[in-house]
């Protein structure tokens, strides 16, 4: 058995994953969770752990316990006091969300069985429930049971589940789920007195009420808007840039009362100089209103494109707020929390997704697809001793431009550029906006690798992130070097790379369009050069000439 097979073998499996929920007439939910995990290998010991997320300001943990049964039958028990209670912080500075966790990996050995059970009382903001049938481990039996109060009807939706799901009126069961599903199988339920009341416009109405809590243009905000746009030929852009540059700080409280969806008043955000996504979006909304431009807060999911489903109207799938701005050219979606994507462009992680304007009666919509491209030309001068002078020019649109802006904003940008170009000797680094361009002149003394007495290996291409790429590399070779052997052209459905000699220069052209496959790592393919007699050694160096390349078409 190979090592690769050993590591891929199932390290642990979930024998039982179960959640029972009883909803009281008041809407309060009593949730009982059970997990039974069997450790199969040494590596699987890391799975002998439990995590129980809860809202520290609203939920109450009634019981929380675990056991670990060793292969010889000895059982160790763990109570609530053995669990660590931690703040659940992602990007927040503070949150009332917490989790209880227990990790007994150090005690678990192959054949051990870890059991975890907890009951908590949960105040839900909505009469809606969700259940994920599995995590990354394979599951033998996964079951969700609901006890609902009389008078409420139930609408259940199953997403990405295998056909073998067994369900009754109140229980949903899946068996033998394989590890690492591409999309997590999920159950989503709405309880309501009237089955027709769960609609997207109804959700939008509720969100609009949250947004309206911070609706109000004050003289301070008005004055700030006027100051920022005075004399500007692009007042919307000026306001957008101002809000983008405010610090992102999220402080999450009172989730059970809906505060997670309610922005702070614009004047307060202005005074603090920081805010989270909805705070920043709302501040921009008010600043735009001050100059007569209409805009709307829009709820969206920034991390999981499958989280919001048209079939299940619910605010629960949203985790981010952006702004839809009404301009003369139409509605423009803008994310004030992303400091690197300018007004007029939409970040890659927000495009082509369901989104819901936080405006009364709004319908679910899909955000537009952005344009993302990277055009790169590199001109290289290579001497016979491996001395390389390079001039790189990138023109980027969309996501590649955002990534370059993020790179250049960092205090460590020179170090990161040096690592990419494999040299500390960066002689010029320049940039321009609209479109975003990056120019770097660099020098490497060791670009050739000797192979025997006469041959040399040369790799002119740089590693590149998968993005729409059009690249041309032109190499002016020393007269003391001749091309001995070039890589064969590489061609796939969405990628091509070709090496050739034209007018005495070595040329490499590479193109990639994002598709089903990642670009092959052709930068590792070497060009073979041969030392040849030459009249004059490579002491003189001609001035490199920038190669121009055509721009790329959108996806």
């Amino acid at each position, binding site marked *: 058995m190979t090592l690769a097979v050993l590591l891929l073998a199932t390290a642990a499996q979930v024998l039982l994953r179960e959640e029972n929920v009883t909803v009281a007439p008041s809407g309060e939910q009593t949730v009982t969770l059970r997990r039974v995990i069997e450790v199969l290998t040494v590596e699987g010991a890391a799975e002998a752990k439990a995590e129980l997320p809860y809202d520290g300001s609203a939920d109450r943990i009634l019981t929380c316990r675990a056991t670990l049964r060793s292969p010889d039958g000895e059982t160790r028990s763990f109570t609530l006091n053995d669990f660590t209670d931690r703040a659940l912080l992602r990007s927040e500075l503070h949150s009332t969300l917490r989790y209880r966790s227990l990790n007994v990996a150090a005690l678990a050995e192959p054949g051990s069985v870890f059991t975890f059970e907890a009951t908590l009382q949960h105040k839900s903001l909505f009469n809606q429930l969700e259940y994920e049938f599995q995590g990354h481990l394979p599951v033998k039996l996964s079951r969700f049971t609901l006890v609902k109060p009389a008078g409420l009807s139930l609408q259940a939706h199953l997403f990405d589940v295998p056909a073998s799901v067994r369900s009754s009126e109140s229980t949903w069961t899946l068996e033998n789920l394989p590890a690492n599903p591409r999309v997590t199988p999920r159950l989503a339920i709405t309880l309501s007195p009237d089955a027709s009341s769960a609609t997207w416009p109804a959700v939008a109405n509720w969100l609009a009420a949250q947004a309206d809590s911070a609706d109000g243009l004050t003289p301070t905000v008005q004055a700030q808007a006027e100051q920022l746009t005075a004399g500007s030929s692009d007042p919307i852009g000026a306001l957008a840039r101002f809000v983008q540059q405010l610090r992102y700080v999220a402080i999450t409280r009172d989730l059970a009362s809906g505060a997670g969806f309610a922005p702070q008043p614009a004047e307060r955000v202005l005074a603090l100089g920081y805010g989270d996504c909805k705070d920043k979006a709302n501040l921009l909304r008010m600043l735009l209103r001050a100059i007569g431009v209409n805009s709307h807060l829009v709820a969206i999911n920034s991390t999981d494109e499958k989280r919001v489903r048209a079939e299940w109207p619910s605010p629960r799938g949203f985790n981010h707020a952006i702004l839809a701005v009404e301009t003369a050219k139409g509605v423009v979606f803008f994310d004030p929390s992303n400091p690197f994507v300018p007004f007029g462009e939409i970040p890659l992680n927000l495009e082509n997704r369901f989104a819901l304007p936080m405006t009364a009666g709004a319908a679910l919509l899909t955000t537009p697809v952005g344009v993302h491209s990277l055009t790169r030309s590199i001109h290289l001068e290579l001497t016979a001793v491996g001395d390389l002078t390079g001039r790189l020019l990138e023109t980027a649109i969309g996501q590649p431009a955002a990534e370059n802006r993020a790179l250049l*904003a960092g205090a460590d940008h020179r170090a990161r550029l040096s690592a990419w170009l494999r040299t500390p000797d960066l002689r010029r680094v320049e940039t321009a906006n609209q479109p975003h361009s990056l120019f770097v002149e660099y020098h490497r003394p060791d670009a050739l690798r000797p192979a025997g007495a006469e041959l040399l290996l040369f790799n002119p291409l740089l590693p590149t992130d998968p993005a729409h790429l059009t690249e041309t590399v032109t190499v002016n070779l020393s007269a003391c070097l001749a091309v001995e052997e070039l*890589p064969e052209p590489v061609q796939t459905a969405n990628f091509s790379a070709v090496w050739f000699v034209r007018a005495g220069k070595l040329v490499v052209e590479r193109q990639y369009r994002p598709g089903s496959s990642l670009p092959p790592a052709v930068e590792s393919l070497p060009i073979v050069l041969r030392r040849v007699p030459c009249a004059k050694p490579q002491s003189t160096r001609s001035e490199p000439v920038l190669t121009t390349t055509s721009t790329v078409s959108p996806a």
Partner: protein
Amino acid sequence: LLKEVILPLLAFAELLFWETRVELPNRLVHSVQMALPLVDDLDRHGNIVLPYSPDRGESISAVKARTILPSGAVVEAGAESYIDALAAKVGDRERRTLSIALPGLRPGAVVAYEWTETRSEISRVELQHDLPVRRRVVQFPPSLQPFYFNCAEGRQSFPPRPARDAAYLLLVPQPTQSADSFWRTYAAELAADFAKELSPVPPLPGATLDELAEFCRREIKNVLYYVTAADRQTNPNPTPADTLRSRRGTPHEINLLFAAMARAAGYTVLYTRVASPQFRRELLDPGQFGSEVIAVRLPEGLRFFNPGVPFLAPGLLDEDEEGQPALVAAPEGPLFVTLPRSDPARSYVERRAELDLLPDGGVAGEITLRFHGLQAVSLLRRLESQSPAERLAALAQEYPNGVLSALQIEESNPATVRFRLRLPAYAERTQTRLFYSPTFFPAHPAARDTVTMSHPPGFVPESEGSHHGLIPLRRVAR
């Protein structure tokens, strides 16, 4: 096009000053000014987080923060900017944080903040921060004596805190006795305790000191190593004779047995404690000492033994004991010595690769690694805590994409690791050639390598004569 030239950074985030006033009995009053010149700095350092543990008697009070904008305007942090929250809790132990979201931050702002830290114990004062510190000042009462660690005494400017060995200041009460007197008393106590523990054992006639040490190391099962939980629950051995009888013992019991056997053979043995390189004789704290070794007085001087460590080859001390300061509890008074270093030539790795280069550029064959001296000790220590699967996985990390099989390990000193390896894309391949590096193993200062590489059929060396760099092979018609 090139409108904005990015120059090398002249400004970087730093603490302009960080002052700490020590107030006895248990308070540290801090005051900081931090410059944040770049947008990037605001995200990284714009929130101040002060951790504390109430169950350890720690608290934070008198917190005050303000932002000073480049224009000179000052924005005070209001009550809403301070957040005191429970960060983590296990049982009765809890860790809290007091966080400050600094208001109105803009690139180029200076942040000023101060807080009072109350601790049950304030002897250690950190001198470094995540950011460089331009001026670090610690004020303390004259009743305290300062010891600077990992930096020169009185140093005021510091680079960012390193992952280990950060600079700190230790403040201890001024001594009431001289260092000589303190260590004389301490050494006398050590010697007295040692004498009490060192009851007689029967001699092992004709054995040399090295043989006695190896007897104790190999014949007495060391209950801290290679044992099950049941082994660890062994009863203590009251005397060296009990250790000899039970054939098991803790490292200390094994060292005592060696000392008793050496004494039975007529040698003078002395108890010795080993410190870290940072040992200060003026700091009257026996806590500076960690492990123990046994000194044997010989006509040519002292020799040191530690049979309580199971992996050592004869004549070696442990890696973290060699060259370290130590205190020998001699009857005539304490002897401060530096433990000897072993000859580096004794500690090396023999690496042998017998490989076939494959036509696709991969290699396959057998690797043998033989670890000698302290190299073997490091390896055996690692192996001791690894399961067979973990050992294989750890080795596999050294050969990314490689497939390892037939792993055999001889756990002795020298130690041998042998396995078969199949590694794809070792050689670089072109349409007509293969290029491979004859240096198969990564550089290692203490390695002695032998690499045998057989060429694949259908390929011949590109040219005769001397080669440097990669070796080219050319495909020939078959």
